[in-house]
């Protein structure tokens, strides 16, 4: 299945890309997706799936948009 991954802020510079469509073998979790793209599990982050926050163990579905962002705290 295909999942779009969007990175926010410093993750863009860390991984060198901003947004890409990824082929993922089902079943796949958000946690697995984060590991697959190469973001440290321990790094504080907020992950949304189609605009809603998700838990690490939640499964992703074909066509999802997953956004991985550091935890901003406001200007």
């Amino acid at each position, binding site marked *: 299945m295909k999942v779009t991954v969007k990175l*926010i802020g410093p993750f863009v510079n860390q991984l060198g890309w901003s947004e890409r469509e990824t082929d993922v073998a089902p079943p796949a979790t958000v946690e697995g997706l984060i590991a697959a793209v190469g973001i440290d599990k321990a790094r504080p982050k907020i992950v949304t799936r189609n*605009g809603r926050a998700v838990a690490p163990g939640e499964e992703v579905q074909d066509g999802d948009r997953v956004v991985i*962002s550091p935890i901003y705290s406001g200007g």
Partner: protein
Amino acid sequence: MNGWTGHILRVNLTTKTFKVESFTEEFAHKWIGGRGFAAKILFDELAPGVDPLGPDNKFIVAVGPIAGIPAPNTGKAVVAAKSPSTGGYGDGNLGTRIAEHLRKCGYDALIVEGRADRPTMLLLEEDKVEFLPADEVWGKGTYETNDWIYAKYGKGVGVLNIGQGGENMVRYAVVRSLEGRAGGRTGMGAVMGSKRLKAIVAKGSKPIPQADPAAMKKIGYDDLRKVQQLDKESGWSIQSTNGVLAWCNEVAALPVRNFRKTHHPDAWKVDGERLNNARIATYGCPNCTMRCGITIHDTAGRESELDYENVGLLGPNLEIFDLKQIGTLNYLCDDYGIDTMSGGCVLSFYADAVDHGAVPGDIKFGDAEGFEKLLTAIALRQGPVGNLLAEGSLRAARAIGKGTEAYAMQVKGLEVAAYNCKFIPGMALAFGVSPIGAHHKESWVITFEIKQTSRDSYGPEKAQKVIELQRIRGGLFEYIVSCRFPWIEVGWGLENYPKYFNAVSGLNWTLDDFWTVSDRIYSLIKLFWLREYPQTDRKLDYPPAVWFDPTNVDTEGPIAGRHLEYDKYDGLLQHYYDLRGYDRRGIPTLATLERLGLSAEAAAARKYGSLT
């Protein structure tokens, strides 16, 4: 008294006189500095009902016990007065060398009274105050004024100045410093302008009283390096605050078209990546090792410093998705000395009113050149439209009528910051109960709310989090007067702040001691509001009506069909009041005031409004 100079400088512009006043250790420990000093002075000294733009209002500059001492991000000062935009307590902070120089002149605060008979620049030196003519730069922008001051005194002095917006008493005019810093969006620049005070310059060299200067020096420089390293590791300052724009767009929290929409397919064009790519320089405040001021070239080739708030509100909020065009609007705001947030909201209010046929006009969302002309008209109060919009969105809406108050994105008269809370109840509450009107600095609860709670919850956990953040952001950082970014953005521990405080004061405070001070200041500010608005009720703490409007919901995206609900919001507000010890109007109860050591202030407030 270690930690404080123990002195406040009182200046009268009408009589061109000054005096140095001492304060007690008890006063220092009770109010600490910055917002604490300012709120206490304004509460004690301003007569209720005073005209914010009249000579009887007082303009305060106040710093905290760690100001001017090399340690992470301590180069900040608070400016405060009765607010021309809200009629209540108003303040703001900004990065400025005044923080250091005011203390090195021997003062922890400056009180400016009266009104000068001509444009004036105050020059503060050790044991000396001069009232100098500023006619030469009256009518000039903040950049030219700053250059004029630097040419006279060099770049190392502390400077606060205003542009034409402040001179013309635009109600959301700011105070400017260091060419890129602005503060006091509650109209503090207008208060300076009303006093014909174009600028304040301070240069001092007295030692700042500290209990253990050697220890503080070592801690301070070590920690500056540590914060710099944390920023490097996290990469935060690569995109700086504008990193959050793309996230707001993804979670439907971006202001688009006067907050009518929450996301836009072109938002990526003005996000943190694009800002970083367009960067020509980076600026920061004194004692900062995680500088957040990214400049780009605007459409005229001028250097314009952008962050999330001004990109959000002068960009997508106006349906402008070109960084150079946003840079131009931002440059004009900065040079005129107008708040970029309120400026953006006022422009979007007017475009919305025109779009709905409430007022005639040809301004349209996306019309960058049209908005440039409007900004100039506002700053110079040119013509009926410029004059009207210089009053802010709430006053303008009330003058126009025709239901346009619904288009004014404000709380208590202060326009909202760049977070669209159409379906984010906790952040809406944070705007509602901010003590100066809708501002994000008090409690930025949005990531907690989206990550750790159900978005549609109106439960007490959100009210509790708002209070927790208010104690830190609107409390600790505003009275110790230090930038909150090391803590909020790169994980610098809160426990470091009592460490600095204790090193300079010789005290042995813990964080818990500070939370009482925070609650005391918030309650005192509530009493200030009560005196100004004796018939106050909880509706003053409601966020903009458009967020509750079922006809204004998103038609697609993550919050399609959703909006805030009045009865549920009111319940959330009640949770906040209960946890704070406030009554149903949102006023601290007598028991709360007594617990916080505010019995004398309660007695003073009771002459004007009831307490329960």
